[in-house]
C-alpha cells in the first residue's frame, strides 16, 4: 500500500505506547496481513492504557522522540474493564498541560485500535509519521537537554562537540 519509500532527509522517531490486548494485537494483525507501513515507529507493550503514565510520554520526548502515539482498546472493550476510561481522562488533562507548556499537540496522537483493526493501526501510524515528518524534528526537548545553568557552562569548543555528540 505504501509506495516505495523514497529516502527522506528527516526520518522522525515515533514511539508508540500500546495495550497488549487490542492495539498490539491489531498491529500483529497488520503483520499477518502483510500490510506495509513506515518503519519509524517503535512499539512498547503495556497490559493496558491504564498503565501508561504521563511521565513516560515526557521521558519519550526527552529521549528524542519526534512523535508519540498512545493507543488502546475502544471504550467498553477494555480487557481490564475500565483501564482505558481512566487513561482517557488522564491524557485529556495531560495534553492540555503539554499544550500550555508549548508542546505542539500534533506530535502526540491518541487512538483506539481494536484487535480486528489492522488497517486502522497502519493508518494511525502512517498518518502520525507523515505528519511529524512534515513538522520536522522536535527541537524543543532536544535543545533543552543541552542547556546548562550559566555558572555550570564551560565554554570551550571541544566540549561543545562532545555535547552535540551524545
Amino acid at each position, binding site marked *: 500500500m505504501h509506495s516505495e519509500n523514497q529516502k527522506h532527509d528527516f526520518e522522525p522517531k515515533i514511539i508508540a505506547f500500546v495495550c497488549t490486548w487490542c492495539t498490539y494485537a491489531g498491529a500483529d494483525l497488520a503483520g499477518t496481513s502483510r500490510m506495509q507501513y513506515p518503519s519509524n515507529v517503535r512499539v512498547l507493550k503495556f497490559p493496558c492504557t491504564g498503565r501508561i503514565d504521563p511521565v513516560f510520554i515526557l521521558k519519550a520526548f526527552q529521549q528524542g522522540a519526534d512523535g508519540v502515539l498512545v493507543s488502546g482498546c475502544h471504550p467498553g472493550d477494555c480487557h481490564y474493564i475500565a483501564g482505558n476510561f481512566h487513561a482517557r481522562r488522564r*491524557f485529556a*488533562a495531560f495534553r492540555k*498541560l503539554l499544550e500550555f507548556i508549548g508542546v505542539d499537540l500534533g506530535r502526540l496522537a491518541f*487512538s483506539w485500535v481494536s484487535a480486528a483493526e489492522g488497517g486502522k493501526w497502519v493508518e*494511525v501510524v502512517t498518518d502520525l509519521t507523515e505528519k511529524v515528518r512534515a513538522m520536522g524534528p522536535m527541537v524543543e526537548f532536544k535543545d533543552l537537554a543541552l542547556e546548562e*545553568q550559566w555558572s555550570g557552562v564551560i565554554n570551550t569548543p571541544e566540549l561543545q562537540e562532545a555535547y552535540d555528540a551524545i
Partner: protein
Amino acid sequence: MPLTSQPIDTSIYATITAAIRSEASRLFTAAEVVAIIGYAAARRVGSAQPVIITDAAAAETLIFTEACVNNLAVYLTKAKKEIPKKGKIGIIVKGCDLKALVGLMGESQLKREDLYLIGIPCAGVLASAVQPATTLTTETIASKCCECDVHLPLGCDFVPSVTLPPGPQMESRYSEEIARLEALTPAERWAYWKEQFAKCIKCYACRQICPFCFCEQCLCDRNKPQMVETTPRPAGNTAWHIVRAMHLAGRCAGCAECERVCPMDIPLNLLNRKMAKELKELYDYEAGFEINDKGPLTMFTEKDDQSFIK
C-alpha cells in the same frame, strides 16, 4: 489597563484578632483542643509567621493581619511528622486554606472530627511577605485574592462575627495571564516557560509548602528509575514542574503558596490554575468545595470527552 491602586479596608482584622485570641484561650481552658495552629507576629515590622501554641497563655500571641499569608493546612499533613497527631487540633483557616483541608479529607489524610476550624472572613492578604510592612492595596494584594470566591469560609466550627466590607473591583490577574499565554503560539509559550523554568534552582520550596505534596518519598527524589532528572538543569526543571502540575491536577485548590514561596518568582500557580480550568471545562469539577472521595482523575464516566482520540 491596570486599575489605579486603591487601598483595601482591613479594619476588621483587628476585631478578628481579638476574637481569635478569646476563642483560643476558651478552647484551651475547656481543653477542647491539644494545640492550635495560627499566626503570630515576627521580628520584622508588620510580618507574621505560623505558630503552634499548646496553652492558653500563648493564645495572646495569635494575630490575623494581611501578612498572614501561609496556608497552615500543610502542618496537618503526614509529611509534617513533628506535629503530634493525637487529639483535636485547632487551626486558623482562610477560605483558600480551607479548600486545601477539604481536599486532604477527601484523600483520607485528615478526619473532619479531629479538627476545630476557626474560619477567617478574609478581605485579602499580601502578595508576598518580602516587604511585610506594606499596606494592603489593589497593587500589593495577592493575585489569588483578586479572584477569590471564598471570602467567607463555610462549614467552620467558629467564625468571628464581622461583616466583610465590600472589596474594590479587581481584574482577575490569573485568568488574564492564562488567556494571554493561551493566545501565544506554542513556540512562544515554550520560550516563556523555558525562561521561567531555567531560573529554578530545585530548592523544592513549592513542594514542601504545598499541602498536597505529602508523599513519603517524592517521585522526583528517586533514581531507580530516574523518571525525572534531579539536578537543577533546565531539562530537569521543566520535567519536575510538568510532573508537579500533573500530580496536583484536580487536587490543587489555588492557595497559590507555591508561587508566593518561590525564591525565583516563577509563576507556578498558573500551571495549577490552568489545569483546574481545563478540568472544570472537561468534567465540571472544582476542587475544595465538598469532600468527595473521588477526584476528577480517579473516576470516569461512559461519556467523557474523547474528541482528541482518533
